[in-house]
């Protein structure tokens, strides 16, 4: 029997993501940040539940909506704030900005789907080096529109790449509902390339943790790609203030599908409150530090 997941740890991680993202959305109109942002609010359980199983050498490929992935990977809050502010202390020294992060074995890129073959290649490299490391790639439902994703599935299956495709299906791409963008069925798309795919409709970090555990175990036991489709909900706007969805529906969704709300009852109140207070302080400190950090200097 696998050990019980660390519920308090999962809660803390999700709360860190939530508070980070809320801080970003709140501060953006004040001109503290620059550029664009895509927040992870509502989807925190995905990154948290999945990346809890990551080994030290495993690789993560992420997309435009990468803050949550980065934080769950273990990325530093101050460095992430700083990157969004364009500061010299940012994850990539301010060069990448919100969508282009790299730290250790974590890579994100803003061109949808373009990361799929890169993730497959990285997994194949680790296999060739016999390192036992594997790759996880997060894709949105929208990214499934890109052809290179299917080329990558085919190659991953043919060449036995140790890669886990995680589809975060929040049923929307920017403003386009999935019904207008995706014909057929997501798991069938993986199956058609001979890639085993499981699916979970949940915002419960424990359920996602368990589903991901099974995927990682299978992936470590048997080489070759696998897929996990996580049906989820995006609570906030696509980027900033660009949500065209029905407000009443969104209110209901936020009520029913909040990963924090779902996990909270499992923690003792005092424990939860301690975590929340600690995280508030951590996020506030990270934000303040990043704000005080210097901008990079342009080479002459």
């Amino acid at each position: 029997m696998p050990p019980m997941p660390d519920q308090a740890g999962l809660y803390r991680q999700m709360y860190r993501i939530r508070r980070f993202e809320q801080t970003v959305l709140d501060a953006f109109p004040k001109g503290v940040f620059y550029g664009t942002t895509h927040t992870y609010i509502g989807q925190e359980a995905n990154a948290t539940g999945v990346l809890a199983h990551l080994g030290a050498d495993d690789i993560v490929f992420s997309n435009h909506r990468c803050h949550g992935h980065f934080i769950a990977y273990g990325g530093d809050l101050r460095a992430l704030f700083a990157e969004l502010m364009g500061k010299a202390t940012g994850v990539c020294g301010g060069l990448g900005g919100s969508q282009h992060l790299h730290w250790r074995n974590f890579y994100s890129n803003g061109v949808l789907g373009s990361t799929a073959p890169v993730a497959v290649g990285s997994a194949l490299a680790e296999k060739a080096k016999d390192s036992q490391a594997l790759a996880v790639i997060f894709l949105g439902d929208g990214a499934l529109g890109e052809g290179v994703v299917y080329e990558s599935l085919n190659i991953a299956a043919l060449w036995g790449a140790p890669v886990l495709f995680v589809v975060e299906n929040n049923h929307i791409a920017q403003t386009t509902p999935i019904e207008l963008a995706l014909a057929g069925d997501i798991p069938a798309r993986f199956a058609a390339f001979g890639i085993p795919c499981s699916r979970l409709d949940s915002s419960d970090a424990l359920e996602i943790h368990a589903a991901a555990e099974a995927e990682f175990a299978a992936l470590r036991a048997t080489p070759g790609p696998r897929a996990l489709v996580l049906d989820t909900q995006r609570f906030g706007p696509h980027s900033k203030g660009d949500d065209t969805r029905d407000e009443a529906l969104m209110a209901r969704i936020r009520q029913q599908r909040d990963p924090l709300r779902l996990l909270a009852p499992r923690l003792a109140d005092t424990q939860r409150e301690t975590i929340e207070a600690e995280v508030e302080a951590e996020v506030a400190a990270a934000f303040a530090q990043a704000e005080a950090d210097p901008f990079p200097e342009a080479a002459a």
Partner: protein
Amino acid sequence: MSTVLAALNRGLHAAFEQDQRVYLIGEDLLDPYGGAFKVSQGLSTKYPDRVWTSPVSEAALAGVAAGMALRGLRPVVEIMFGDFSTLIADQLINSIAKFGAMYGGDVAVPLVVRTPMGGRRGYGPTHSQTLEKLYLGVPGLRVLAAHALSDPGELLRRAILEDDGPVFFVENKLLYLRPLAAELQDFEIEQHTPPGAYAATHTLRLKGAPSAALTLTAYGYMAELAREAQLRLAFEHEIFCELVVPGQLAPLLPGGELDGALAASLEKSRRLLAVEEGSYTLGWGAEVLARAAQAFPGGLKAASRLAAPDAPIPASRPLEEAALPGVEHILAAVQKMV
């Protein structure tokens, strides 16, 4: 006062109204959103059957438009960011631009790919590029660049309705909110339409200025900055320039000939500065300078280019500002040349 954005939107509406064969395909086109930069707003409400919002599939969008155009429609494709035009490079180069000539000449591919380009918004390396230089040398493709000197909506309308070949239509993001043809009262403007083109080249002179010591050339949003530089050079430094702004970036005249308006200006000034937001090497300015060198074998007194460095565009504001050519850069470059 109208903006470039409003003008483009009007141009699309006019095209839809005037010709039933006009269709729009692209991502997130439906109202109230109306496309990421709102250029397509109102169309899906007014013409629900002719606006097809799509999956995130740029290559197929371009190919689908090619098929529609082959079969007599006049599709417009919106590519959300010009950075993603790389995904349609094969369709553009090996299908869309080729069909006309490679099938022996009896096939037309009347379609317009519209896309925003450019930085200065901190969007980072994959959402800030000025990539049209990749397409300027593609045989069979017309490349137009919206600017604020005359109505870009009318240009777009003509590209959609009157051009029987494929058009790559570039819209700089910062241009969208610029007022149309504003503050031109200080200028004398000459318009010249190159043979085979329908987009005019504009030559701007400050009213009452002495003869120009230098010819600036720029397109799109860069023409706005160049115009500002032109004013400041005159008033702050008493350096008088002419500014030549092409609307059509490709094709250029056959045989490597220099555009007439540019040639006329250089004939007098003998100094050339080409300014662009794209990266330096093999940018638009390279072709401009090459043609100028061919046209003036005796040589110009000075010929130079201002462009972004050959590096990804940083997200950080101070880094991005330093990288992309601005008014100050133009002032400095011109001062060094005269």
